[in-house]
């Protein structure tokens, strides 16, 4: 039987094709369990309907999320100071790194000095490094730290760091594909973003070379 049909809540369980089935448990070597797996596969092809991804972007994001998971699990074997150093070497500020990991800057500084971090914090750091490396490698982003710090939409200060810190890494990966409409990404992040970030003021370089603020021309 397929994963769907082995749901204890009956065919498919309640709703949601978005819920991932449990991982297949490894079968024993040879013997009846292996045979039943072959039978299952044959049966699966026999009069079964299979929903495929029609939206290739959704499929792509699912694939990248799984790669992200896998790479994070690899990187988490490194110690925290190493993880932090590798992220910093990409050009992120310590404030940016703290924001991405979801902690305070002093916490990051303590870890750099060798203080112990929880397993979750170390995983979070590994996940930041993994996301950065994936974006560099898959989407050929040359300066990933600058990419993370760039405003997503014109006239709006929201960056990929803000998306990631708001626990929307899927939007970060979509943005990285280069095929996503930045305004759609912004709407997924904040449906009211145009109003939220509308301003009657503008920043300009004044005669002393510093940045100042003035009202916009109407």
């Amino acid at each position, binding site marked *: 039987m397929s994963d769907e049909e082995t749901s204890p809540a009956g065919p498919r369980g309640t709703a949601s094709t978005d819920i991932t089935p449990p991982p297949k448990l490894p079968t024993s070597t040879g013997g009846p369990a292996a045979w039943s797996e072959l039978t299952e596969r044959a049966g699966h092809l026999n009069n079964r309907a*299979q929903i495929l991804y029609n939206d290739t972007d*959704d499929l792509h994001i699912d694939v990248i*999320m799984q790669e992200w998971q896998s790479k994070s699990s690899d990187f988490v074997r490194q110690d925290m100071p190493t993880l932090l150093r590798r992220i910093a070497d990409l050009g992120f500020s310590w404030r940016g790194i703290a924001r991405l990991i979801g902690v305070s800057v002093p916490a990051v500084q303590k870890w750099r000095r060798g203080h112990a971090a929880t397993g979750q914090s170390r995983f979070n750091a590994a996940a930041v490094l993994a996301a950065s490396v994936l974006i560099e490698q898959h989407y050929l982003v040359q300066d990933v730290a600058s990419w993370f710090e760039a405003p997503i939409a014109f006239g709006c200060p929201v960056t990929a760091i803000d998306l990631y810190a708001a626990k929307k890494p899927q939007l970060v990966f979509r943005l990285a594909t280069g095929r996503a409409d930045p305004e759609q990404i912004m709407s997924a992040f904040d449906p009211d973003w145009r109003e939220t970030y509308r301003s009657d003021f503008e920043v300009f370089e004044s005669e002393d070379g510093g940045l100042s603020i003035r009202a916009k021309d109407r």
Partner: protein
Amino acid sequence: MVERQRYSNAPVVLVAAEARHPDAPLLSPGEQGEVKRLLASNFPLPQPLQNTRLRAAVGAPPTVEHEIVPRFATRDQTTAVTFGAQAVSVETTKYETFEHLSELVRISIEARQKVAPVDGLMRLGLRYVNEIRVPDICNGVIGWREWINASLLGAAQVGTSLGLTAEQWQGATVFNRGDGRQVAVQYGSREGFAVMPGGPLQRSTPPPGPFFLLDIDSFWAATVEVPEFTVETVMNLCVDLHEPISGLFEGLITERLREEVLRNVR
């Protein structure tokens, strides 16, 4: 009945309510327009789903079928109602209260029955998917016993006493409440996500690390008679199906999880 708790850092990532009915044609464009009008204040965003089905039968070439399933979402895309050929589903990744969810179910069922009524209620399910993530799992997966009821650890505890380290496990328990009602609880240590973030619903997505899945599906299925698909029937059943869920969840977690994780905003 166990008092319902509200947590600032609740682990629930998806709640779904699904009312299944006999096969019915998908809503026509005109019907979709009417449903959209009825749901505009709660689900203003039309977001049809494209499904592609591959049918393969022995002795015949595979066929590919495309269908566009009407779906309407909130502006922040965390909640949506889908009107499929076999079910009306309301799903949310931003669960507030049962009362709020059931109100969305009510208006969705009302809209369906007003515009293109279906013939009966075959199954009603209420599903809560929890991804329990904690600061640290010490001593490998057996460390989950600090956070969840030991009954969910299965053979892992016995293995530990024999020097065997469990790498993964999963379990399921199905409770029979009679009159066609059951509660299926699936659980186990996992990695990544139970609800993939790339889907049409936006969800809050932490890094893809270890978590403990607690998937509670409370459902009713028609046995002898298929009742009418009415708002009253669906809503009464919803309340009944919701009743054991809190108690099960609270009974399957530890006080440490409540204090250090669920009541902790950060």
